[in-house]
């Protein structure tokens, strides 16, 4: 009996852990990558703690403009969809009961229609309209902000209407009647009685509308014109490859969300407490060194703590310079590479020695040095990888890759791999610093090519992506020193 309860408790706890990991894990990981100097959003290998991606983000004109567009469109959508949703919900309560469900279905339909369809139809509709009405309307009806606000509001207004309907169901129409009875006009009754009652719902509907607008992609993608929103810009960025400045943005957004949620909770709790105090109820409070606002209000405490952590984080950003660390990492990687090269040379020397002992090898033309054979073997290896080695983590190791290149064979490697994407997604393209830093003899040789271990790779169906050796932190070839 007792153990059963214990068991179910453990199961529940486990479930919660898994659930929250699933829910929040990606966000936490992504936020952490914002602080890794590694040019690809990753936490392994962890190179250096760095704020450079925030710098990159702050200098990214396109992202900043996209955020501005998103905010403008968000605010426009809030105004439009709150107004439309409120009107729709009021009509719903007034309308003849027989027509109510029909009306409701019509009003709710945009939620069920795919956003893509809404986007296309918005563009088409206003385009036609501007043709009918003449060129005077052209500028407005083809304006990206105008179209996006309208397109998004078609379905966001349905969301806000649902919020309003829920609130209106708790409204006593007798209150409006009482106001009228006391001499108020209909407008006054609406403004002084119904509107204040709806205020909390209007606030939540506005937040909902803003968030829905901010994160919308599929409708916006047809309507944005010359005003790309943040989601559009992010999606476009992927085409040029991503870097951790995206993570930096994610970190900022997550921080703001956590901050907002905590602030809201703290404010709410503070108000409940103030209410209780006003009513003269006893509020349990032990002796505490905390100021009154924080007492018995965990949310306020967490808020203060959270703000403190974030502020410290950004404070250190001003004082802290990762340059030394980065130099150290670079040096370490170079040292590692040098060591490996020596190892390699030693091995080859050994092989040569063995071959000489066995006598002339039929597979190796006598004049040719053996190491060249190793490089040649490396070529088919990359060719066999199904994605042309795009996903080979070794590609990311700009510094170390170039550093370890054996001088004898690397020139033989073709500069362009047979990648199906033409190398667009090659993260190596992003590694400008890294690429510049380590270039030894041949600049254009993709770093992954330096893989000498021809024998190991072809056996792996994924081009060695899953090779645990990849995780060891230094270059694709680091692991197989056997």
């Amino acid at each position, binding site marked *: 009996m007792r153990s059963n309860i214990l068991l179910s408790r453990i199961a529940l706890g486990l479930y919660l852990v898994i659930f929250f990991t699933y829910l929040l894990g990606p966000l936490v990981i992504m936020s952490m990558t914002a602080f890794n100097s590694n040019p690809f959003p990753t936490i392994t290998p962890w190179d250096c703690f760095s704020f450079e991606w925030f710098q990159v983000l702050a200098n990214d004109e396109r992202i900043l403009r996209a955020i501005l567009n998103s905010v403008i469109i968000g605010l426009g959508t809030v105004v439009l969809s709150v107004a439309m949703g409120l009107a729709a919900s009021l009509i719903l309560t007034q309308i003849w009961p027989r027509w109510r469900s029909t009306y409701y279905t019509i009003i709710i339909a945009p939620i069920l229609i795919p956003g893509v369809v809404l986007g296309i139809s918005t563009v088409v509709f206003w385009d036609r309209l501007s043709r009918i009405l003449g060129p005077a309307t052209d500028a407005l009806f083809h304006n990206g902000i105008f179209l996006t606000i309208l397109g998004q509001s078609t379905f966001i207004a349905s969301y806000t209407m649902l919020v309003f309907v829920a609130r209106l169901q708790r409204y006593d129409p*007798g209150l409006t*009647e009482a106001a009228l*009875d006391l001499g108020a006009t209909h407008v*006054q009754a609406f403004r*002084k009685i119904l509107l204040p009652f709806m205020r909390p719902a209007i606030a939540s509907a506005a937040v909902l509308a803003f968030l829905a607008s901010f994160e919308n992609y599929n409708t916006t993608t047809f309507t944005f014109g010359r005003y790309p929103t943040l989601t559009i810009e992010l999606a476009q960025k992927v085409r040029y490859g991503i870097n951790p400045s995206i993570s930096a943005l994610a970190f900022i957004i997550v921080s703001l969300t956590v901050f907002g949620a905590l602030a809201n909770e703290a404010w709410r709790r503070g108000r409940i407490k103030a209410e209780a105090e006003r009513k003269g109820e006893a509020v349990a409070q032990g002796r505490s060194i905390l100021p009154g606002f924080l007492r018995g209000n965990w949310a306020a405490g967490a808020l203060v703590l959270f703000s403190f952590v974030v502020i410290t984080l950004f404070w250190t950003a001003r004082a802290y310079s990762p340059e030394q660390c980065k130099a150290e990492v670079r040096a370490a990687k170079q040292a590692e590479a040098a060591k490996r090269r020596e190892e390699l040379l030693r091995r080859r020397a050994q092989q040569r020695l063995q071959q000489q002992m066995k006598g002339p090898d039929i597979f190796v033309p006598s004049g040719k040095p053996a190491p060249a054979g190793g490089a040649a073997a490396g070529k088919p290896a990359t060719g066999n990888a199904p994605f042309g080695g795009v996903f080979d983590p070794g590609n990311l190791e700009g510094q170390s890759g170039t550093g370890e290149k054996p001088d004898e064979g690397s020139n033989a490697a073709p500069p362009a791999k047979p990648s199906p994407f033409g190398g667009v997604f090659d993260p190596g393209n992003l590694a400008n610093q890294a690429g510049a830093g380590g270039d030894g003899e041949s600049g254009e040789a993709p770093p992954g090519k330096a893989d000498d271990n021809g024998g190991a790779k072809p056996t792996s169906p994924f081009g060695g992506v899953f090779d645990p050796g990849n995780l060891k932190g230094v270059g694709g070839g680091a692991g197989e020193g056997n």
Partner: protein
Amino acid sequence: MAGGIGVDLENLWIRFGDFVAVRDANVNINGGDFFSFLGPSGCGKTTILRAISGFLQPSEGRVLIGGKDMAGIGPNKRPTALIFQNLALFPLMKIWENITFSMEVKGAGKAERRKRADELLEMIALEGQGDKLPSELSGGQKQRVAIARALCAEPDVLLLDEPLSALDLKLRQHMRTELREIQQRVGITFIYITHDQGEALTMSDNVAVMRAGVIEQIGSGHDVYDLPATPFVASFVGENNVFRGRILEVNGTEALIRTNRSGDLLAQITPAARGVLKPGDEAMMFIRPEALSLVVDAGAHEKTRLAAKVVNEEFEGNSYSVFLEGDGGKRIKMSLPNVGQDRIASKGEDLTLKYELRNAVVMPAGELAAE
């Protein structure tokens, strides 16, 4: 009561689809009166009130306030104020803002409103509570705020829809007196709705008793109680013993009734049925429990006496209720004031009861109020 604005309903019909909520109501309410509509739940009282205050258009007939036809005039233009069945205080406004809402919509300044609110708060004995919210008041306090809010609008006619129904007995009794006092002080017409006959009788100058959309009787509390016009009114207002039977003879305003189970009894004919009741008609005779008393000597009139056996006796503080069984198994209730007597009777005892002729009324048979 001189002055004040009267309200008249002329041939008023109100229908909801096929359902008739009010059927041909004709009422004249004098200015400055305290007038009550009394009736069981669902009989159309609120509907009449809503027609007077302008939330409902009559299907037929007219509503006149101060002699003026109110057709087409909205609720905010009528000189009426309604106190709703559920009070309908504005939950988000402070008490003083609630009270002075009618001034606010007319554009009165804050200082002026505050001053008026303080006056009214004093009148309803809630000084210094103006900054609370309605949710922070007790039921009785809310009640008084609703009254103050309505009075602040300075209406000529105040309409009250069962405003005391949510209160406990003590508070209800207190508020009855208070309402009556307020009404006499401000001197305006009060139209009061209730299903509590005690309430109607205590406060009203005149009462209209309704049943299923029909006004059965209009009159003073005394008229309605002592001389009910219909069996419904007789049985709905107060308690009554009913004796069914047939008229044997009619003699001016008196009639002799052959009751089904209690022999021949004499009663006076209710004013509304005089000249209508004829010998042979089905009739109902009513005698209030407190109008019955024990026969001590044998001198009473033969035809105002009945024999009965005691079934049960209940002590109710101010009175005893004695339940008896008449000759034919008829149930009879008698109520005697508690004046210090030991016991009235013991179970199974045979008693002879008598009544005064003026306390028994007879009328054509009809429907009784539901128990």
